[in-house]
């Protein structure tokens, strides 16, 4: 149950803007086991998204190590990273990042296309995931024809399509109203209850309360890391 899925050692990420260096992450050490539901919290600019992008293999660290499922990610080639993003990681973004001209179904199918899955199986699996997020009746709609909450659920279905080891969500409720946001969190809680490892970025206490553990970032460094109860109070 509790095998190590994420392990980082002194992760640093610097951005060089002209003569100025932005130290977005200044040495982050975290360990996350499979089955966990973790919130990464912190004020705006504290490096939450930067950390998420490193964990999601969308970006590479300036310094430090990162093991995903025991594999040293910094050793991998671009193609291997693409395969990991495709197979091991499901990413949900604050701004949804759906293809506007493709139907919900096609958007959900997309990772399977790059995984080389045949058209028939692709359709079948995409339908199942859309039904799981209760969008079975919106499959042929394009993102502009869907509400924010529906779009984010399409994005969740897409993130889950390859049954990833890790579901990452960067402020998934940031563009949703509070009711829709709570619905979204209910979906994530359900997923976690059925064993899905989830790492969530948020700056809202209420949202973090849905998870089981909080990691607080401050100026690119972990300031707090604790398990909490349903009210978000440290155990």
């Amino acid at each position, binding site marked *: 149950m509790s095998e190590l899925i994420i392990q980082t050692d002194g992760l640093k990420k610097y951005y060089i803007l002209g003569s100025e260096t932005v130290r977005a992450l200044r040495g982050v050490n975290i360990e996350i086991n499979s089955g966990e539901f973790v919130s990464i919290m912190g004020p705006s600019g504290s490096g939450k998204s930067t950390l998420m*992008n490193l964990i*999601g293999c*969308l*970006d590479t660290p300036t310094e430090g190590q990162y093991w995903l499922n025991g594999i040293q990610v910094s050793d991998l080639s*671009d*193609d291997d990273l*693409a*395969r990991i*993003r*495709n*197979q091991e990681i499901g*990413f949900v*973004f604050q701004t949804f*990042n*759906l*293809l506007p*001209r493709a139907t919900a179904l096609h958007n959900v199918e*997309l*990772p399977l*296309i*790059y*995984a*080389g*899955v*045949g*058209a028939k199986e*692709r359709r079948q699996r995409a339908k199942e995931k859309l039904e799981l997020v209760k969008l079975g009746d919106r499959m042929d709609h394009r993102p502009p024809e869907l509400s924010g909450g529906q779009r984010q659920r399409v994005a969740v279905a*897409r993130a889950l399509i390859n049954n990833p080891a890790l579901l990452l969500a960067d402020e998934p409720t940031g563009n949703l109203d509070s009711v829709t946001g709570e619905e979204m969190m209910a979906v994530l809680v359900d997923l976690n209850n059925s064993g899905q490892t989830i790492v969530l970025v948020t700056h809202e206490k209420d949202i973090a309360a849905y998870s089981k553990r909080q990691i607080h970032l401050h100026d690119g460094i972990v300031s707090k890391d604790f398990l909490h109860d349903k009210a978000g109070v440290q155990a």
Partner: protein
Amino acid sequence: MLIKEILRVALTAIRANVLRSFLTTLGIIIGVSAVIAMVALGEGAQRRIEEQISKMGTNVLTIRAGQRHWGGVATGETEDLTVEDAEALRDRSGGTLSISPELSSRVQLAYLRWNSNNQVRGVWPEYFGMYNLNIEHGEMFDQGHVQGRRRVAILGSAVAEELGTTGSLLVGNKIQIRGQPFEVLGVLEEKGDAGWFRPDDEVFIPTSTAQFRVFGGRRRLSSIYAQVSSTNAMDAAFADIDRILRREHKVRPGDNADFSIRNASDLIGAFTATTQTFTMLLAGIAAISLIVGGIGIMNIMLVSVTERTREIGIRKALGATKKAILFQFLIEALVLCFMGGILGVIVGVGGAEVLSRIANWDTVVVPEAVLTALGFSAGIGLFFGIWPAQRAAKLNPIDALRYE
């Protein structure tokens, strides 16, 4: 299945911007159609020349007057070719050559109240054999007519009609050639259009008659024709003619001859070289427009990559490899070029057809040119598409996702 998605995306992108795509491919369309039409024109001209030459008989040598030389320097004057030269060739070649001088000019013909302006050639009877001109009605003139400077004429098959009558009726009657009465001895069989040599429209009279009765004592011949018994004997005949005429014209050995001897295939060669140069030139210009078209494709692909940076980011985040993105944009460029190529083929083949109808210009669409032009346009798609595609493929996923 990835290739299907790639094609689908390419077609969607092209369809999403139909007008832009069309304008982009316009360069390719024009280039491909121009190449095809130009080569079709050139090929048409080429075939026509070959056809004409084959009708003319390839074992006939044409002797023309050249420049007089004085101590190795061209004087600018031309030495005349005369009937005496022709006679010398006939008499001293040992019977291996069939010779006819030719004196020709356009002249007014009249019959009753009809008038016509035609080429009149003063020739010997041997002339008809050289060009396979056969009598349909009446008979040929012979050496006797030549010696007697007789006013007799052989008409091409179409001349009678131009004079408002028919060949069979005209035989035995008199027509006016430059105001003088000529008896029509015979009418030739139809020969068909043979380019610059159109015997159907021409009138043939004895050389002597032409010289003294029609052209007012003109000595200077247009040419002398010499038919060689076989194509194999061509080189020997060439040497014979050169030797005989040099003696006639008193050209010193080593000096340049003041006449030229050419055979039909020289003529074909000269014409072929000209049309080929011309075709290459036109096709080259067309090819340049293809390259310009390619630059247009590259430009629009760069725009497309920029516009779709976010899409590239999304696809990469979901597991698209560099190669998948590279192919996506490369194939889009290829599809664009290929569509342009196909449209270009249609326009080019259609244009060649229209040209041949309207301008009455022979065109032959060459399949190789079509394939080459299509291949070339695909190659241009590859060549000019690779750079934008590489730019797309190299994008870092997170930078692409952040792009506004």
